[in-house]
């Protein structure tokens, strides 16, 4: 029998993996991907708890989280392109040029 705890622990694990990715990687695209992993961990929690409570609200929140993730990816990648055009690099070190 799969219990709620199984899903919640998997989700905590995914969130921790996303955190490690943000700290260890030096590529701005991989950083954005790590953020996507964390968002998905939260999505899994919403769906699992929504199923446990027998309500569709969990899936509706997931829908909104996906919308926010799409907006975040669009703006984040536009920033990446703008900065790459400026410095020919994807390293977060190059983002110091944001300090005027």
């Amino acid at each position, binding site marked *: 029998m799969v219990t709620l705890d199984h899903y919640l622990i998997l989700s905590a694990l995914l969130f921790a993996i*996303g955190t490690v990715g*943000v*700290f260890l990687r030096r590529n701005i695209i991989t950083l954005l991907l*790590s953020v996507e992993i964390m968002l998905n961990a939260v999505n899994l929690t919403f769906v699992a708890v929504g199923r446990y409570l027998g309500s569709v609200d969990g*899936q*509706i929140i997931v829908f909104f989280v*996906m919308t926010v993730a799409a907006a975040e990816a669009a703006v984040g990648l536009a920033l990446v392109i703008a900065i790459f055009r400026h410095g020919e690099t994807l390293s977060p070190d190059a983002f110091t040029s944001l300090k005027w």
Partner: protein
Amino acid sequence: MDIWLFYLFALVIVGASLGVIGQRSPMHSVLFLILSFGALAALYVQLDSPFAAVAQIIIYAGAIMVLFLFVVMLLNASHEDDDPGARAPVPVGVKVSGCLLALLLLVELTWALTRVGRPAVEKDAASADSVSSVHEIGRVLFTDYAFAFEVTSVLILVAMIGAVVLAKRKV
């Protein structure tokens, strides 16, 4: 049977997520993440949430990840070690403290999330019908959450304009 399917998909998800952060080529990271999203959609199906599963495949794996792939190919994103802008590797202190923080987060999240006891997710067939009903999702989305839904469209518009302005050559 269910539990073995869960462990299989959980293994794929965790393995693919480790693959995303574990190696240095952005292209491979994106492909690993698509694999992870596919397995996650399978878990959603197990949770009687076909709407979330289909949205996961179409929106996440289909749209957002293709956007990432476009950018990786457009910028010809190099191997992380070949990046001329990377001044120094991540200091060991940052690596260790980052891993420690993530470990703490994992322990704390697990503790906090499992306070609800050990109930089975699949309780009865009746609630499975109400949860998996797309009809019910549509009704709730356009009545109770109608305002949030409209605000979402504004958010998308703002993101679209922001992306165009940021990526334009001359502002």
